[in-house]
């Protein structure tokens, strides 16, 4: 980057002002930026649309989101070239695509894809061509001083993107006939047409927001470098030099060397100074508006802000660290000092925060109590044998050892209902012992039978279950008692189906 050729007025700004500068950049270059975005993203959109038509709606949306860093690279390259008066034509960008877009891309599509400071960090790797340890060291250097707010920029943009694309979709939906009306949040994945419409509205939103996101992040990056490397000073001095001649400039630079030693590391002087004259000029420059325009600003600030700012550089003084240490260690954590007047207030706040956290936990447990209560049942259904079907106890322990004899005894005593009940439970128990059953408590006898017929149509006991169920329903709901012969016949068939094959299997060598 040649600072001489920079195409903007560089000045140290607050991060929010820097983002505003990004917005100005976008407004100045919105036509080429949008064109570049469309050129490099439309092929990918076509691929993603094809995926939605082939039914992979969720994958298509995920793929498009995942490859956003790739589509942002030409935008950033354009901004950098345009700012430094280099050739930023679309043809050049297309020709050089593999030079600037592919090197260092892989980490941005893998673990760095989830970096919330992407807009700020990508210029470090893409424009400065840094990777690995150099990249990390450079990031560390650029994180010195006031926070750059790149994370906040990502949060803001993500929310604006979500709101705008969803609103745009709803607007389109409102113009469609009623049967397509948006009814719930997972609407996008319900059909291919829905996913296509959702994707297109999202893409249109991105066509505005992505260039804005890149320019804002780039402006943050430039601003940070301006603060740390004194770009504004360097440019100001160079302008002066141009005005007053090369000799004067070098003298001035030599004079100011002690002043600039910490802020302009790459500013070098190549000629010896003429001390008296240079000193006089330096005083004039420092007093002039060109060097540092002065303006008065009135703001509200805390009384102990100075001491707080001093502590900010220490990571232990970050608000998150202090909040966590305060929550777990006590009031000293948040105040950073042992102030006897604050603990009582801090203690109250701590109790309130803990109460809120516990209440949230309890509310979550209460809200999902049905689902949580069903978890043991679900685990049991996959790990342990079935003990109940449709509310009936079918454990072997709950049934007599010799079921046929017990059934006959009940039938001879005239307890036909108990006899049939035993037979019914015994049949279900036998069927469940060799097959997986998933019958809900609300299932009726007919539904249990239907379930068995659908899931285990080949099992010999299912036919018997059908006959027992029909007889059982007659007894239970119509109060028609069967004859002893019917029960005897059914119990014999039960024995034949379930007990005889088991005994044969046991006696076989």
């Amino acid at each position, binding site marked *: 980057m040649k600072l001489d050729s920079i195409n903007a007025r560089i000045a140290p700004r607050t991060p929010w002002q820097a983002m505003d500068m990004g917005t100005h950049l976008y407004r100045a270059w919105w036509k080429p930026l949008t064109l570049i975005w469309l050129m490099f993203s439309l092929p990918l959109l076509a691929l993603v649309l094809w995926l939605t038509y082939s039914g992979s709606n969720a994958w298509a949306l995920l793929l498009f989101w995942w490859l956003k860093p790739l589509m942002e690279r030409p935008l950033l390259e354009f901004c950098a070239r345009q700012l430094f008066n280099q050739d930023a034509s679309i043809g050049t960008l297309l020709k050089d695509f593999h030079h600037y877009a592919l090197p260092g891309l892989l980490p941005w599509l893998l673990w760095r894809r989830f970096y919330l400071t992407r807009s700020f960090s990508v210029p470090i790797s893409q424009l400065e061509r840094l990777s690995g340890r150099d990249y990390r060291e450079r990031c560390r250097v650029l994180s010195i001083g006031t926070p750059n707010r790149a994370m906040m920029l990502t949060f803001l943009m993500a929310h604006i993107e979500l709101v705008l694309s969803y609103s745009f979709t709803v607007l389109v939906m409102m113009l469609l006939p009623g049967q397509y009306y948006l*009814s719930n949040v997972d609407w996008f994945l319900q059909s291919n047409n829905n996913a296509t419409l959702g994707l297109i509205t999202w893409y249109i939103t991105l066509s505005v927001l992505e260039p804005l996101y890149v320019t804002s992040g780039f402006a943050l990056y430039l601003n940070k470098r301006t603060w740390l490397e004194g770009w504004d000073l360097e440019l100001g001095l160079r302008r002066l030099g141009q005005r007053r001649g090369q000799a004067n400039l070098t003298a001035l630079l030599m004079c100011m060397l002690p002043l600039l030693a910490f802020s302009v590391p790459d500013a070098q002087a190549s000629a010896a100074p003429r001390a008296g004259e240079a000193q006089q000029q330096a005083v004039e420059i420092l007093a002039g508006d060109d060097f540092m325009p002065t303006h008065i600003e009135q703001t509200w600030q805390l009384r102990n802000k100075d001491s707080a700012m001093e502590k900010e550089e220490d990571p232990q003084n970050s608000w998150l660290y202090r909040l966590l240490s305060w929550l777990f260690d006590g009031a000293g954590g948040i105040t950073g000092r042992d102030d006897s007047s604050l603990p009582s207030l801090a203690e109250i706040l701590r109790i309130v925060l803990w109460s809120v956290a516990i209440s949230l936990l309890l509310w979550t447990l209460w809200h999902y109590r049905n689902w949580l209560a069903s978890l043991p049942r679900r685990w049991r259904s996959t790990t342990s044998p079935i003990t109940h079907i449709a509310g009936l106890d079918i454990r072997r322990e709950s049934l007599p050892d010799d079921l046929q004899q017990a059934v006959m005894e009940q039938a001879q005593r005239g307890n036909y209902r108990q006899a049939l009940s035993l037979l019914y439970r015994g049949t279900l128990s036998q069927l469940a012992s060799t097959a997986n059953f998933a019958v809900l408590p*609300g299932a009726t006898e007919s539904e249990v039978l239907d379930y068995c017929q659908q899931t285990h149509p080949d099992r010999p006991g299912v036919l018997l279950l059908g006959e027992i169920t029909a007889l059982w329903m007659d007894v239970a*709901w119509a109060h028609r008692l069967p004859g002893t012969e019917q029960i005897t016949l059914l119990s014999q068939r039960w024995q034949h189906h379930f007990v005889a094959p088991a005994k044969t299997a046991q006696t076989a060598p």
Partner: protein
Amino acid sequence: MTTPQTLADAGQLARSIEDTVSTVLVGQQQVVREVLLALISSGHVLLEGVPGLGKTLLVRTLSHCLQIDFARIQFTPDLMPTDVTGHAMFDQKTEQFRIRKGPAFTQLLLADEINRASAKTQSALLEVMQERQITIEGKCFPLAPPFMVLATQNPLDQEGTYPLPEAELDRFLFKTMIDYPVIEQEAKIVRMVLDGTISDSLNVSALNTLCDAEGVLALQHFATTVSLDDGVIDYALRLVRSTRDQNGLSRGAGPRASIALCIAGRAQALMEGRDFVIPDDIKSVARPVLRHRIQLSADAEIEGQTVESLLNRLLDQVPAPRQ
């Protein structure tokens, strides 16, 4: 055309009516079944569905097959109660008041788009539905049995409508959802109209008549003789009571729902050819009986739940009776 003499005959007649109506109203078997169940149970039906799905055709076909009177009222915001029930008119020739009976003096009344009328007119219909009599100028006129109201409401266009109050909704035995037929059934309808098998002009005169008002009354009588075990009644009660403490419902069903479940369960058993009610009968009529008697809470609506999904969950959770 016969009047059934036994419960088995009644079941057979009910099924033949269902088959005949289903030949005209293709692809709406569930709707036909529920309307017939309501007729046998002496109840009224609230039909909800978009226009053009055959609601009028259904009523015309029923009226023709059962040889009972039919009338239709198109409810509008300016409809007055006297437009439904009738009024007393001064006859200048005889110098006396003469009663002019309204369209409600019929046996099968189609109240189209009932929620477009004002609450006052809806209340007039409420008396007709509940009391089965109409009072004009202090004089009561009982309606000729069988009397049944099929009210329709349009779910799409809710502007300028007066939602039915809970008290009136409770008077309907069933709320039946009439939806678009599946593609095969729709294709069948188109082919039948093109072949001339059925007419698209609501002309049902070619259909056979199956019984008359006496036959319908006999069906209703035999339905009351179907036996109902205490365990099944208990199941119906548990289903209804579970709606009152169900998570996601702000309003549960009242005692009328329990009664409706048992009555409709009997009709269902009759149509299945049984002389006793089994839990499946109760379960099969639970959705149309309960769906208009319960109200989703705001939380459940925000979570995307529907009355149908909640009812399905409830039917899965409430244990079926075991004797």
